[in-house]
């Protein structure tokens, strides 16, 4: 039973082309280690430096978005100050492209603003994204965003297809947010 259940989870991941997956509490340490493994795997597959860095850049911005904005956090002291943010990250291959899907819980009150940002990014072409990046690079971060805008633009800029996102309502207060990016 045990092996059968977990084999079925693994088969689901394999069927989606997923080669890395993590679900649970994320930290900057996990970002670093998972990022290293991702780069090593791509280097072994003989990807060139600029391609690896493009994928890595999307990975870092996606992970840092979860770490900063997940609505499911644990914090306290364990010898030192610790803050963990729940979420999931999956990286896979699909039609010859790397894709990264990240998911985390967000407060429903944040959904309209996040949707607006993502729809705006989706409406822009390459030059539009570049201009938007240049503008935001010179802006002070707005309240509560801690620089999220530039991070999302960076993600859209490195993507080879338009970014894809979705929300799934969990209860009256929270939704599960997913962002898929192909590079």
């Amino acid at each position, binding site marked *: 039973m045990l092996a059968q259940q977990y084999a079925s989870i693994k088969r689901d991941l394999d069927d989606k082309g997923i080669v890395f997956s993590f679900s649970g509490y994320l930290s900057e340490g996990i970002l670093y280690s998972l990022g290293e493994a991702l780069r090593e795997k791509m280097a072994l597959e003989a990807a060139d430096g600029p391609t690896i860095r493009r994928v890595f850049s999307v990975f870092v911005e996606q992970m*840092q978005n979860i770490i900063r904005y997940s609505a499911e956090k644990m914090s306290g002291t364990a010898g030192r100050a610790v803050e963990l943010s729940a979420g999931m990250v999956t990286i896979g291959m699909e039609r010859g492209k790397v894709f990264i899907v990240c998911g985390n819980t967000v407060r429903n009150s944040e959904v309209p603003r996040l949707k607006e940002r993502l729809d705006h990014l989706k409406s822009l072409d390459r030059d539009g994204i570049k201009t938007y990046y240049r503008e935001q690079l010179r802006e002070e971060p707005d309240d509560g965003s801690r620089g999220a805008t530039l991070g999302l*633009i960076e993600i859209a800029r490195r993507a080879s297809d338009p970014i894809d996102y979705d929300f799934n309502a969990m209860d009256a207060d929270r939704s599960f947010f997913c962002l898929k990016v192909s590079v």
Partner: protein
Amino acid sequence: MDCLTIPATGRTPGVSFDFANGHLRMTGESYPDDVAAFFGPVFEALRSFLDDPDGGPIRFDMELLYFNSSSAKALMNIFQMLETVAKGGRSVTLTWCVEENDESMRELGEDFAEDLRHVVFQMREMPAGGPP
């Protein structure tokens, strides 16, 4: 302060600011877990160096291979500080180094260069595989 030297780690850049000779350099990669904690001391040292009214010419070599969006904001701060002193008449040359074929990094250089009017900006290509 004559110099500021911070060795590179896996996720924070190497900083070698040779203030005595006006030669400043950043290498490696930048995606610190705490951007403010890393760049705070860098800004502070740079600010006191730039405040010196008798300062000579400045060469800044930007040799980062990768930086995240929060580091981009910090770099923008640095370049705005350089632009301010260049506007005041000090000679400042910023060299943006890119690995050949790294179009993303080349474009980022152009993004930063856009509003440098007084700093001399130049792009330099490095062979793939990182700086020697």
